[in-house]
């Protein structure tokens, strides 16, 4: 029975990488609100591959950052953690706090609060 059991590392990788992607998106979004130059660059990232990225604006680049950091961190964490069995307390806390922070970072009144606008 124990030999059949799959270590929980892959699950940790799947959930943490989802949070990482979302948190990155929140940070990038906040960054575009803080700096016009950064916003232009984020738009250029979207234009690199999304059809009609001009119509979507910087949002296209933010989606790109979500996608790339999510998938990339998932692949890395998957292979780092796949054979490991980890205590879930700390990862769960990181996940909940990180996702909550990601939520705040796409909420305009909070962004204006931390940017001091």
């Amino acid at each position, binding site marked *: 029975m124990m030999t059949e*059991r*799959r270590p*929980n590392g*892959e*699950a940790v990788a*799947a*959930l943490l*990488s*989802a949070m990482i*992607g*979302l948190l990155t*998106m*929140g940070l990038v*979004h906040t960054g575009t609100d803080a700096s016009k130059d950064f916003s232009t660059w984020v738009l250029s990232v979207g234009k690199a591959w999304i059809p*009609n990225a001009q*119509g*979507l*604006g910087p*949002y296209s680049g*933010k*989606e790109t950052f*979500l996608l790339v950091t*999510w998938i990339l961190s998932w692949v890395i964490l998957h292979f780092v953690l796949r054979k490991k069995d980890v205590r*879930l307390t700390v*990862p*769960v806390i990181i*996940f*909940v706090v990180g*996702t909550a922070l*990601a*939520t705040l970072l*796409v*909420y*305009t*009144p909070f962004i204006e609060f931390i940017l001091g606008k």
Partner: protein
Amino acid sequence: MSSEDPSPLVTIAGWVVVTAFLALIASTTAPFGAFLGDTQYAVVSTVHGMLATLGVIIGTVATYLGWRLFTGKIRAFTDLRILSVLSALIATGTVLFGNWIYVAYRATGGPREFFLKNNPEIHEIFFEFKEFIALFTIPLSIAAAFIIWRYKDQVIGDRPLRTWVFIAIMIAWTALMIAFLLGAGITKVRSV
């Protein structure tokens, strides 16, 4: 005396026939076009809204089963496996069509311009939040579906893991409902 009569399958078949008949009448006589408006985005918007509604239906049942998983009382694990994948697919489809509409939303003369002039909070707070919170559903629902398929029944017996999966499902469902309600509210005020 009534324990096997009528046959469930015959009854359901009868009900399907009646429903199909009514649907046929509706589809040949109801002028659904009246809702569409005449923009080039009419069909895209309709697909987006229908997918979002389907996402609410499927996602709500999946979340209910996530709750049963969390409490350790799930029996319909097969249903959860199917619905978790469907939820992830519908979330992705809805966002793709949403992107398409977003172009019209941002265009000159589109709803964004209207809101910024008349009701800036609707764009700056609600729409900005909606466009991002909707994206939360994709990685979270895919992560949950991945774990449910990868760990199979093992996730049922693993209390901490099933708790975490339920939390992820709940966040995804909350994001879905927020995006759905804000979307309905915004399109009510001004549609593409």
